[in-house]
């Protein structure tokens, strides 16, 4: 879709674009190309000479046990978050859609975790499950289950998954509810006349019609789990214990910023960029736009 040519001016459009383009070049494209460049170089131990090593850094990276571990952790983490956040939001949205009066009130009561920063979400859950003073940890102990996520990797993973899911449910709920309310009532009524009960109506009518929304949300949720959960990891586990929650984004931060491994961090950055590009392509190629409303 294009406008008919409307305004002609030799300089104005460039001036209007200048701020956006300048920031893009200086803070996005230049640093990204630096990372790309460095990922192809190797520095000697004294930092005096650099040599061009092609893919060596990448081969090296993918042969490191802790990087492979991080990949695995990220996969488990993001799939768990996506599945949990999507299914619980869908469940709640189905319920809210059922009560015509009050659906908006429940929406109000459920959407605000979207506004909570990931790091804050982490702190909330950290406090609940703090091994010494957390109320949830206390209850678990009363039930005979010993909770200490600072020592137990599985528990640490559970905790960050729960915190990340908690924050994402509101977003998914909003889109599911909107998607469901966009389904014409007449379709549901036709199915009811055909004798389909509520559960059957959901699986044969509502859920198929929600497929585009679900797919869109799946991509968004995985991207969220990959990149936006840094604050949760940083505040709750710092990647521990023993790398059990060391997701890729946390690892690149830690290796680069705390351990000052420049080359390694650049190589990891490039891998992450590839992942984002892949997600972006999926999102733009396969996710039908305007699936909602």
């Amino acid at each position, binding site marked *: 879709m294009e406008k008919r040519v409307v305004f002609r001016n030799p300089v104005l459009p460039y001036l209007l674009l200048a701020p956006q383009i300048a920031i893009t070049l200086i803070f996005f494209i230049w640093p990204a190309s630096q990372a790309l460049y460095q990922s192809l170089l190797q520095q000697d131990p004294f930092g005096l000479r650099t040599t061009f090593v092609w893919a060596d850094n990448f081969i090296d990276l993918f042969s490191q046990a802790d990087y492979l571990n991080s990949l695995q952790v990220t996969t488990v983490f993001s799939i768990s978050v996506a599945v949990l956040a999507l299914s619980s939001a869908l469940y709640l949205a189905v319920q809210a859609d059922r009560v015509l009066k009050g659906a908006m009130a429940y929406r109000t009561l459920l959407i605000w975790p979207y506004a909570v920063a990931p790091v804050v979400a982490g702190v909330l859950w950290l406090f609940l499950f703090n091994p010494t003073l957390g109320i949830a940890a206390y209850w678990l102990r009363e039930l005979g289950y010993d909770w200490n996520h600072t020592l137990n990797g599985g528990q640490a993973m559970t905790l960050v998954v729960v915190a990340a899911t908690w924050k994402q449910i509101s977003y998914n709920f909003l889109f599911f509810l909107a998607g469901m309310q966009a389904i014409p009532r007449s379709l549901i009524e036709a199915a009811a006349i055909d004798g389909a009960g509520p559960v059957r109506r959901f699986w044969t009518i509502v859920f198929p019609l929600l497929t585009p929304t679900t797919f869109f949300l799946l991509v968004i949720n995985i991207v969220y789990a990959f990149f936006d959960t*840094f604050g949760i990891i940083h505040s709750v586990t710092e990647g521990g214990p023993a790398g059990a929650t060391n997701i890729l984004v946390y690892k690149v931060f830690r290796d680069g910023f705390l351990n000052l491994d420049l080359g390694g961090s650049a190589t990891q950055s490039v891998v992450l960029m590839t992942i984002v590009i892949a997600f972006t392509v999926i999102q733009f190629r396969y996710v039908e736009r305007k699936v909602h409303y």
Partner: protein
Amino acid sequence: MVGARPWLNILTHVILILGVLIVAFPIYVTFVASSHELEALLQTPIPLVPGGELLNNYTAALTKGAKAVGAPVGVMMLNSLVMALGIAFGKIAISIIAAFAIVYFRFRFRMTAFWMIFITLMLPVEVRILPTYKVVADLGMLDTYGGLIIPLIASATATFMFRQVFLTVPDELAEAARIDGAGPLRFFWDVLLPISRTNIAALFVILFIYGWNQYLWPLLITTDESLYTILIGINRMLAAGDDQAEWQIIMATTMLAMLPPVLVVVSMQRLFVKGLVETEK
């Protein structure tokens, strides 16, 4: 509703209320903790009804902060506010003029500019941490508001949203303005801005939350305590370790960190939903 049965309705409400309670529970515990003395929080189990120290804790947090961090939370909230407003206004300003150029003009490198902006979608700060830090350091922008805000205000999402909005504005409106004698800037200011105002407001809500909740970037570039945002402040308070952590202050700070964005979302729900849906188009 089709096939409504009274008991089913009640069950539905029960499930929903349960959902709401589970979602709200962590906040409730945090709120309760922020209303007790530290001693009360160190008992097991910690209390689940509010205590009487609410005012004291919040006043202490706002004016003095935690012992481990040398800045009061009041200052941190101000920093967060500056950053959130700066990012929101900055993104809107540079995106709306960029979209205006792309939609209403034809010029060389138009598509180049378009793709260049598109690329920023694929380069979140998380994937270019170090080199971006280096650029900001080289420009002497570490520990400045400029360094906190400017690198974050390029926005493909906002630019595309405004492009979408402008594309739905009838061509005849711009033509009528031309016949009325309005040049491009005048048309932008007199017509395009006013008719986009709800879109701007909706985007502002989303971006304010985005800006307030920035964490990784301020973590990288601020070392000066007087520039800490509230989220960084919480992290620093926690970093003191379990033994010295002043939980009542940390919890009060956590509540304060949530308050502005949650208020914005709840009070401007309609705009918020509109913004959310539009930026995902």
